[in-house]
């Protein structure tokens, strides 16, 4: 018998509502289609501040934080950037709550030399207001910008090479972190690929270190990103993190949240369409019509300006690996839904947000990341889609970019992808030169642009999915050019897409819908 969150449609089932960027589309799926729904939000902690204090005083694999402190020591606090969580969390963000307790403890122990760094790696610099949202007014006003700032992976004077792993991976990290007496990392773990050694060894590194694992060969060996034990990327990061931890005195604080992505008025988006009340069904219809008729900036505002009411489900502190075990377990508890058998055809909506477009537009390269990268990889065990199967996704694939945040993406998509889609070739022929483009690096350092290596990493991010998936068919694309550039086919409607998919599927194919967001991960068994 299947899990209650895996619903099989029959002829009387209501149409399903899927995200198509920042719009909603209603689709009819054939009887027999399996729909996988996200789990209900886990019950949040009743007293988060008490849980934080408890975690700091009862850490895993480490002495309590207070025992590590001595007056006059130099402490650096690393903080996860805006890519976590998605969408941003309603204030107070859990990082603000952790920082408040930690800073008080540091002050009580005579530790005044405290620097906080947003561990952006090669992501874009966060704006002052975005940092304020994460750390809160009091901390922001006291520390920003001199003692609270973004990591700069291209500030060569402030990057230190710690050594190489046995596999030759270069570990180069932010000098502040390396020269601190104690490095405290404050994480917010949204999905299982976050946190652990990734926090320090990726968050504080630069291109030299990233290219050790953010390359097509490594990415092809990730099955999946959401299962660190089966991800070559996570294994490489772990090796580098262990080397880093030999040199640094790291105290890790990880937090988990539930998947209450939508607040009350939009909560119905997470529900089985057959279970909607009359009022909820009307609200869904009204929202669908509204989104179809308002301009894009308004749609972006509806979804992105409203922070999510996530609840905190866990706070764990201590040694990196010991802490992360607990974090992973809580993450899986929230997201995993057991699914029996793989699908021949996997249907999913592509939402408006990814970790790389908070407060900006989901451009075509990021749509690719969502489809071949994140949505395909939302599994543990066997992939939800059979090898060579077809993904059907709903998205307009609009040829639009945020000109500031994604400046280097534009050239990547319009100049390089037309040359080749082959990740290996892109890696060999173009990456090194593009990644050292002085203008883009300057835009990363003093503007709010992603590093020029990032669009390559985004393409590689889809590599495991591309290697596995036979075809991708996009429903609702507003142009032919972008899907073709991505190597995808287009269909005008879901029935047309299903007909196309059946051409290469076995008779009576298994059709499965992943109903996201909120986040759901399939734990697939044969």
């Amino acid at each position, binding site marked *: 018998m299947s899990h209650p969150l895996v619903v099989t449609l029959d002829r009387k089932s209501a149409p399903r509502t899927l995200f198509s960027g920042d719009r909603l589309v209603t689709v009819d799926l054939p009887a027999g289609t399996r729909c996988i729904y996200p789990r209900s939000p886990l019950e949040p902690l009743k007293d988060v501040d008490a849980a934080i204090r408890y975690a700091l005083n009862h850490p895993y694999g480490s002495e309590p934080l207070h025992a590590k402190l001595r007056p006059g020591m130099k402490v650096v606090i690393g903080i996860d950037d805006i890519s976590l969580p998605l969408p941003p969390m309603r204030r107070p963000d859990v990082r603000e709550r952790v920082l408040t307790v930690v800073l008080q403890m540091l002050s009580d122990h005579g530790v005044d030399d405290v620097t906080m760094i947003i561990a952006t790696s090669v992501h874009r610099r966060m*704006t*002052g207001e975005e940092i304020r949202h994460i750390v809160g007014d009091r901390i922001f006003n006291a520390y920003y*910008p001199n003692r609270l700032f973004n990591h700069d992976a291209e500030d060569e004077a402030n990057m230190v090479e710690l050594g190489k792993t046995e596999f030759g991976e270069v570990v180069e990290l932010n000098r502040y972190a390396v020269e601190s007496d104690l490095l405290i990392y404050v994480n917010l773990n949204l999905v299982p690929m976050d946190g652990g050694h990734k926090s320090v060894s990726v968050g504080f590194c630069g291109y030299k270190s990233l290219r050790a694992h953010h390359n097509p060969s490594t990415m092809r060996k990730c099955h999946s990103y959401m299962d660190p034990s089966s991800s070559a990327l996570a294994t490489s990061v772990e090796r580098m993190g262990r080397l880093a931890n030999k040199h640094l005195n790291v105290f890790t604080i990880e937090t988990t949240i539930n998947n209450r992505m939508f607040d009350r008025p939009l909560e119905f988006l997470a529900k089985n369409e057959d279970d909607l009340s009359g009022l909820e069904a009307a609200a869904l219809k009204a929202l669908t019509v509204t989104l179809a008729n308002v301009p894009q900036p308004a749609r972006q505002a509806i979804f992105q300006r409203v922070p999510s009411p996530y609840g905190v489900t866990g706070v764990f502190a201590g040694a990196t690996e010991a802490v992360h075990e607990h974090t992973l377990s809580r993450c899986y508890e929230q997201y995993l839904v057991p699914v029996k058998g793989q699908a021949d055809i996997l249907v999913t909506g592509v939402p408006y947000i990814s970790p790389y477009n908070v407060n900006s537009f989901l451009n075509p390269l990021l749509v690719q990341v969502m489809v071949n990268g994140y949505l395909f990889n939302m599994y543990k065990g066997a992939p939800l889609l059979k090898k060579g199967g077809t993904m059907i996704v709903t998205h307009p694939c609009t040829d639009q*970019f945020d*000109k*500031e945040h994604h*400046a*280097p993406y*534009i*050239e990547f998509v*319009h100049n390089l992808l037309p040359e080749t889609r082959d990740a290996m070739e892109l890696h060999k022929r173009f990456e090194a030169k593009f990644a*050292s*483009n*002085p*203008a*883009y*690096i*300057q*835009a990363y*350092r*003093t*503007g709010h*642009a992603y590093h020029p290596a990032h669009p390559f990493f985004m393409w590689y991010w889809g590599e495991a999915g591309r290697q596995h998936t036979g075809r991708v068919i996009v429903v609702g694309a507003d142009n032919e050019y972008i899907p073709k550039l991505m190597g995808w086919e287009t269909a005008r409607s879901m029935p047309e897409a299903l007909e196309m998919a059946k051409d290469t599927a076995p008779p009576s194919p298994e059709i499965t819908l992943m109903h996201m967001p909120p986040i759901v991960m399939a734990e697939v068994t044969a």
Partner: protein
Amino acid sequence: MIGASSYDLLGFFESALDRTKAPREERVAVAASYFDVDGTLVRTNLVHPTLWYLMHQRSPMRSLQKLAKAALRAPRLVLAEMQDRRIFNELLFEAYEGISHDRLMILADDAFADILKKALYPHARPLIERCRREGHDVVLISGALDFLMTRLADHLGATHVIANRLEIKDGFATGRLLRPVVAGPEKARLIREHAREHGHRLDDCFAYSDSYSDVPMLSVVGHPAAVNPDSKLERLARTYGWPVLSLDSTAT
């Protein structure tokens, strides 16, 4: 125009060049980065060093006379700036008429230190260093005067200068500029010429400017970038997807 060949002709410029690049035969520049200067690398514009020279005449009375004349010329300068950058340059540099070449040169170090060096954007030098590390020729292309630009090139590690030159007769500036006048669309032609002479493919080259008047220069290279741009250039850059940069470290 002061390019590599002109450096060879002038011992002073040659000394500046020698400190900024390896001997030509050892150097294989893969591309060139062309930098406008005023407003792009430094906060100042052409007027600042001109006023500085006018204020540093051989006597206070002479300075006053020169400044008074410049003030009378101001409305024409404003109109010229609105009309054509080249006319503006020519009118502005008329202020140098009658100043001896010796004086221009003797005061050049002080003018550079007082005006340009102090006005450098904090990220100007790191950006130029990065271009050099990428193996680029770094070319300052500016409507400012050559003797100041060579000092700036020396300071920043730029390899070439394309700048305006005053006409000197009998040891004194006539107030006219030698041809070609470096401004507006002429910069684009000079860049094409420089790239051809040095074997660079324009598609591989970079150009940086703050001003809409430099769109021709930005348009001839494969990698244009708007730096601290005026609003018109910023709109254009966003439209075409050119990077928009700030070289000011105070950006948050």
